């Protein structure tokens, strides 16, 4: 854990942002959950950071702005894909539910006078 007043030692913000974009592109949920934990830790440390650390982070934040825009776009594309997948799932569910009606009809039962 970083002590208050200690110099900034976290991985660069820009690394976190680009890694999040990459992981989301590959749907690497585990890595994304790890990154979420890193962000939580970063946020905790930020609350206790001194002026120098904050200034360093501010500089990093400015640098990472365009990469955040990329992450936002990847997130937007993922949401659209998720919508498509959810709709497909609903469609498949509907098809299964009504599948029995769509199956070919059974041949009519014959009378009891058939021969074998």
């Amino acid at each position, binding site marked *: 854990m970083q002590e208050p007043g200690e110099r900034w030692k976290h991985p660069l913000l820009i690394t976190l942002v680009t890694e999040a974009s990459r992981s989301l*592109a590959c749907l690497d949920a585990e890595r994304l959950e790890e990154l979420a934990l890193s962000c939580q830790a970063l946020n905790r440390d930020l609350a206790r950071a001194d002026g120098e650390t904050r200034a360093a982070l501010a500089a990093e934040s400015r640098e990472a702005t365009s990469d955040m825009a*990329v992450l936002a776009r990847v997130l937007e594309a993922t949401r659209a894909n998720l919508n498509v997948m959810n709709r497909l799932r609903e469609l498949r569910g509907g098809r299964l539910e009504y599948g029995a009606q769509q199956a070919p009809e059974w041949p009519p039962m014959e009378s009891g006078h058939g021969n074998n």
Partner: protein
Amino acid sequence: MGTINSALSIMSGALDADQEALNIISNNVANANTTGYTEEVPNWQENSSVTINGVSYGQGVTETGATSVRDKVLTERLDQQQQLASASGSRLTALDTLQALFTPASSTSASGDIGTDITSFYDSFSKLEAEPTSSSYRQAVLSAASTLAADISGAASSLASQKSSLDQEAAGVTSQVNALTTSIAQLNQQIMTTSPDSDAGTLEDQRQADITALSKLVGINQITTENNGLSITTTSGALLVSEGQSFQMTNGTESGETHFYVGTTDITSGLTTGGGELGGYLTARDTDITGALSSLDQLAYGISTSVNALNNTGIDADGNTGTAASPLYIFNEPTAVAGSAENMSVVMTDPNEIAAASSTEGTGGSSNATAMYDLAKSTSAELNGQTPSDYYSSFVSALGSTVSEVESENTAQTASVTQLQTQIDSLSGVNLNDEAASLTSLERSYQAASKVFTMLDSIMASALNLGEQTTVS
């Protein structure tokens, strides 16, 4: 006896069906690494039952063929995303080349450093203003003017070359599109004949592979027709394939640029906005490069006409002033904005013709040199109300923003294609459990990424808001 025969028949039928199913599975394994192959699953059909003495007996199952596990909705979504990713990819490549032209440190820069050239040119009048009779300062003005003109003209020529090369690449796409649409039409014909009511297996795989390849080249819409047929139009509605018939795309030159046609209809503008590699090439050619060339023309026109106008009204070192017959122009006087950059050059050869003095002064005056130096700080309508330096800076900055914007777009679209491909791959052995797991993974990734984004956004906002601490709960 009949019952025993029936039982044996059911068993042998079941064995036959199993054998067919095994063949299908073997085929799946053999094609596991074949690009575009879609896994097939056997179709089972229950045989009609027989009724003996009022009791129905089943007759087992028959294997009636195989159905490919494909999801047309998902595949079509992938094709659409692929079109966007290809368009932004080819546009980005062109924009990178374009940006390099205006990057002074770049090895491919043909523009030198126009920003510095502008400053140096106007600054040269500042020295002349202090010593208007100095021939070396007069020569320095012409030298700075020549550097500026050569760099602007060089940049314009490079833009024209890039445009021509993009034009050729775009034209080259036509034959690839035609080969694919012809193949799709032939496959349509076969599919409609052999499998009008069911999945056509490898034929549909081949058709899908062609559609995917076509999507990378141009923006298309797919319309499913009767009997498993397919029609394909460009996103602007030009028909490329109608079931078994394909319509060839042709190209021709209009005003020095390649245009594209289906029949006699010019579909160029629809292709530009439609997506695919061709869309990217055409957007770069018609929007990015044309826009850059237009900005350079505007800059060259603004500088040339304003400097020439002032010099023409002053008094040169020999006591002459400009006339209609023999104007005192430093730069080649443009007659129109278009073409000003490429034609920009220094026409003055004698440094004494620089009119440092105003018409009310003697030859030793410097008011006109001061006025020409002040042009660096004055805004003009030709330059959108900006100074020449600011105009050029805005142009370079806008170009950088466009590159960055398209880069973001391309990254997001490529990510989307990767995600969809992952989903399609995971669904190929479709069963509802696998499908649910795949969807869960997508949802989980999205939720975790949303959390990361929200937290990073807050952290960055908090860090930029120095002195104001906000924490994310």
